[in-house]
């Protein structure tokens, strides 16, 4: 049984380094990732329904930047943005990176994170709820999504991706693959 209060924060030193990191490579990877997600999880978008047209600010509060997600059916996008120039969004979901990743991986319950104030919601509540529910149904494993970015080389990339993410996960206390769930 997990306790929401024990959610680890991204190490401050790491966050300080990332403050000056260029965001373009991250945005390119994000754009790629979300495109692969669309192909691999079509029901994610059917579940979102009209909420797919909304713009979400996914805001890991322990990182110096946030992600602007537009799951729009035809041209989905995920770009890394500095908080101060995040631009327009319909809904903001804020919380420690570990909480956000744990949500995606089904380690954490969104309502429980909300009750414990580890998750903050602003703006279009209906859109947030739809996104949360749609993602929860997909049983997404970000490590295999990343591996899938390699296309035909997926099987080659999968094991290293899993190993790296597992190491990173252990380091930061973040569930980066669904297999880490049992440790959370």
């Amino acid at each position, binding site marked *: 049984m997990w306790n929401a209060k024990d959610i680890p924060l991204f190490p401050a030193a790491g966050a300080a380094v990332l403050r000056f990191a260029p965001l373009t490579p991250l945005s390119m990877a994000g754009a790629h990732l979300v495109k692969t997600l669309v192909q691999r999880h079509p029901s994610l978008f059917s*579940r979102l329904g009209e909420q797919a047209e909304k713009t979400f600010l996914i805001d890991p509060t322990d990182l110096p930047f946030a992600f602007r997600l537009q799951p729009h059916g035809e041209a989905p996008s995920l770009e890394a943005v500095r908080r101060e120039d995040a631009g327009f969004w319909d809904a903001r979901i804020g919380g420690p990176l570990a909480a956000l990743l744990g949500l995606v991986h089904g380690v954490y319950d969104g309502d*429980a994170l909300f*009750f414990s104030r580890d998750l903050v919601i602003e703006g279009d509540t209906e859109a947030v709820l739809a996104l949360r529910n749609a993602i*929860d149904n997909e049983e997404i494993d970000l490590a295999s999504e990343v591996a899938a970015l390699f296309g035909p080389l997926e099987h080659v990339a999968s094991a290293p991706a899993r190993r790296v993410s597992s190491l990173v996960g252990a380091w930061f206390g973040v569930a980066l693959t669904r297999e880490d769930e049992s440790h959370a």
Partner: protein
Amino acid sequence: MSRPQLELVCPAGTPAAFRAAIDAGAHTVYCGFNDETNARNFPGLNFSADELATSIAYAHKKGAHALVAINTFPRAGAVELWHRRVDDAARLRADAVILADIGLLDYASKKHPDLRLHLSVQAAAANADAIRFYAKAFGVKRVVLPRVLTVQEIAAVNRDIEIETEVFIFGGLCVMAEGRCSLSSYATGKSPNMNGACSPASHVEYREEDGDLVSRLGGFAIHRVHAGEAAPYPTLCKGCFEAGDYKGHVFEDPSSLDAAELIPQLAEAGVTALKIEGRQRSRSYTESVVRNFRKAVDDYAAGRPVVAGALRGLTEGQTTTAGSYRKTWR
């Protein structure tokens, strides 16, 4: 004396949560179609007919049961949609449908005489005679009891009726008699009875004001919680208000039901099934709660002590109550 095996009836808002519930030991899973016919009509939630077919097949393969909740009250002039959903559930071999509306019960009992009918908590049948009416008129086989009765009253009801009873054991707690509450439509125009949503997200607004989290429903301020305090759902019966000299939770504190410690008494009161609330929750919630309660009912059946209170972190307000099952709650 041998103890009964209580049936654990578990929620699923998505096919993933459905599988999680079965894998965690649910005897029975309940779910609904992705439209206004069910009382958890939330964005991104629920099942298409295809998803339901796959899920029901999964339950049956694992020796579990699947119930389909079609438990809103059909809109005047649009009852065909609800009829179609009952037909779908019957065709997809649901083990029972959970209904609340008299007209719909009448339709289902005539059109599908072999389909097992459960009476939803939304019908608010709170005494033996009310239950008898539904059993006699429509052949209802099980009633989900409203959360207004004490354990003693539940025992009395079971002595007086022939059909099975199912009671809520864990999860969100309605303080009002369900199916008889228009608070949500008063503030938002959308109600559980008509639209399948209480305090719908489309009318909820959260805002940080001076470090406090303020939630509004339909423009009415429902709560203001300070930093570090547990946040509640924006349901207005759990809001903070002023009435005369009183300031606080006029209706109910933001806590949820956890009656795990009452499992032995509920079994002795003749209850057949225990229901977990939370179709709107994640598969992580479903998994934890189902696993815990499956262990609890198995422990009870085997004569072992039942351990309660392990799930507080998952609950609203992070506090729990045994609700109306204890008379002092009133």
